[in-house]
């Protein structure tokens, strides 16, 4: 029983990692209907920036804040420079552009900072915690809390602020929005900025756990993609829930189902998601819209 609790807790900790990046994926999807394959690498790159700032002596929370701002600006700039020229092309073209970003950002980070694994300072205390024999760290709790807070802020932003509403309108009804005077192009750029900022938060939360290297986000991206789709690709709440569920399910499958073990747990989890999608084609929290084929 105590083992089970431990596995669930460590699954939640891992799931919160998926959740935080899944959130960024959802934001881009809502803005332009594509999966941004470069999301993880953007998060990795901004995390290196945060690391560089801490090396220069900035306290971690200050570096955190500065990086989120830089990431936002970087996301906006990237959209203006790289995405805008292909904005009107078909979606596959945009997907390939994000793959191009993925590959080049990964190479760039290795070129700048090398491939040696680095420790990233955690913004949380490192002392081990124990409740009822279940061990975890303040880091684990911190990541979950930050994900939930980010989720809350995003929801507020989209529902309560004029800018947030404008962004939603621009994504859903670009033509009508233009008529209403919304600058659709800039809304898209803001969407990228926002996603990139959320990605930076995710990177900084993840790096103390998986450690900093240019490839740190690649496996996380696979899980985040799965989490986002499981939750319903347009739903930020779904992304967070999807991530946590995925983390726990993977741990339980790996630990308690001998036929699956650690070896096939990713495959099994993905299979389960596909089955879930067959029953609920728009994910757990997604609304079924008119199917666009």
């Amino acid at each position, binding site marked *: 029983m105590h083992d089970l609790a431990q596995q669930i807790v460590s699954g939640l900790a891992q799931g919160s990692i998926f959740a935080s990046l899944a959130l960024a994926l959802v934001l881009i*999807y809502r803005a*332009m*209907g*594509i*999966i941004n394959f470069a999301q993880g690498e953007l998060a990795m790159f901004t995390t290196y920036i945060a690391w560089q700032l801490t090396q220069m002596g900035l306290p971690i929370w200050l570096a955190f804040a500065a990086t989120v701002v830089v990431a936002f600006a970087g996301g906006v700039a990237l959209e203006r420079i*790289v995405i805008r*020229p*292909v904005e*009107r*092309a*078909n*979606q*596959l*073209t*945009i*997907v*390939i*552009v994000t*793959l*191009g*970003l*993925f*590959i*080049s*950002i*990964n*190479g*760039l980070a*290795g*070129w700048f900072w090398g491939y040696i694994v680095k420790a990233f300072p955690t913004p949380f205390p490192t002392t081990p915690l124990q409740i009822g024999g279940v061990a975890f760290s303040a880091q684990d709790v911190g990541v979950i809390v930050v994900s939930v807070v980010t989720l809350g802020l995003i929801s507020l932003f989209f529902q309560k602020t004029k800018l947030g509403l404008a962004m939603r309108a621009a994504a859903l009804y*670009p033509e009508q929005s233009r008529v209403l005077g919304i600058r659709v192009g800039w809304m898209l750029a803001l969407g990228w900025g926002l996603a990139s900022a959320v990605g930076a938060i995710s990177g900084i939360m993840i790096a103390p756990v998986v450690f900093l290297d240019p490839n740190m986000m690649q496996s996380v991206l*696979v899980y985040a*993609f*799965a989490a986002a*789709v499981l939750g319903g*690709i347009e739903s930020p709440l779904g992304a967070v829930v999807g991530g946590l569920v995925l983390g726990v399910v993977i741990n339980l499958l790996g630990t308690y189902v001998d036929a699956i073990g650690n*070896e*096939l747990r*990713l*495959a099994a989890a*993905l*299979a389960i*998601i*596909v089955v879930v*999608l*067959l029953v609920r*084609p*728009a*994910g757990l929290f997604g609304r079924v819209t008119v*199917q*666009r*084929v």
Partner: protein
Amino acid sequence: MPRPNAGLLTRVAIAVAVIAILPWVVPSFLVFDLIYVAAYTIAILGLIILTGMNGQISLGHGAFMALGGYVVAVLAHSAGWPYWIGVPLAAIASGVAGLLIGLVALRLAGVYLALATFSLAVATPSFLKHYKSITGGFDGMSLQPVQAPAGVPLGGQQWLYYVAWAVAGVVFLLSALLVRGQFGRALRALRDNPIAAVSFGVNPYFYKTAAFGWSAVLAGIAGGFYAIPTAYVSPDTFTFALSITLLIGAVLGGISTFWGALVGGIVVEFLPLVAQQINAAAPGVVYGVALILVMMFLPDGIVGGLLRLTYRFRRAPPQPALESSTPSAAPVTVGPQSRE
């Protein structure tokens, strides 16, 4: 689609001639590399039919290549069966798997289908490692290099080159015949306007599943011709990066024309090599930037883009042909649109 006219035949004849002559004019290692181009081309052709013509995104065709490659390898390694039996069986096995996945794909669209197929690609190496007794586990399996049959005055590599390209020729021909008539019209109709297509009596289940199956057949054959020259298969051979590579090849080449498969095959084979010539320290940066630039300036892929330039150059009104693809302004479309 127009009937095959003299022009098309000329083009094909030239392509065949170039392919036939190449082994005698390029160095042996390039002949070897061009076998891989044939494999990529065949697999990308499958993606062009599935994604380009039918609008179903697959991020997992590397998994079908893995299946094909392993069928050939296991039969050769464990049972000593020759490759000429292995490859057709690979095509069948992969086709059956493709039909099954295609049935699942019926329920999923867009990003959900992308995830499902991506999952397939991600999980493939785990399965290959897990079923050790069949696949040889992570050690993989070594294969015998190809020898030309007795009486054929060719080296093993040259022989394999001709066989691979002959097979590529056959699958191009079969695919062309397949998509020329009603089948091709149905695929495109289901992509462009499914509701109208269904109301005109097009059975979406049949056509979409069939498209998936056929594209998997091609990927299975390609997997065979990926494994045979390497003379080795292992889980590391078929990572999800391979699936991504195929998609890149299809879109970069030009996803709405068969010629895009050939160009895409050449690009994904040689671009990484060129990239490391340019910047040996960080080849990824060159490769990635090249992808972005091509997409910025030729959003319809290399073939699509060149066609467009040719039109402009001739100042002729752009005639929508099979090869041209009209980029869609609406962000809701999955896959390119092309008009007949």
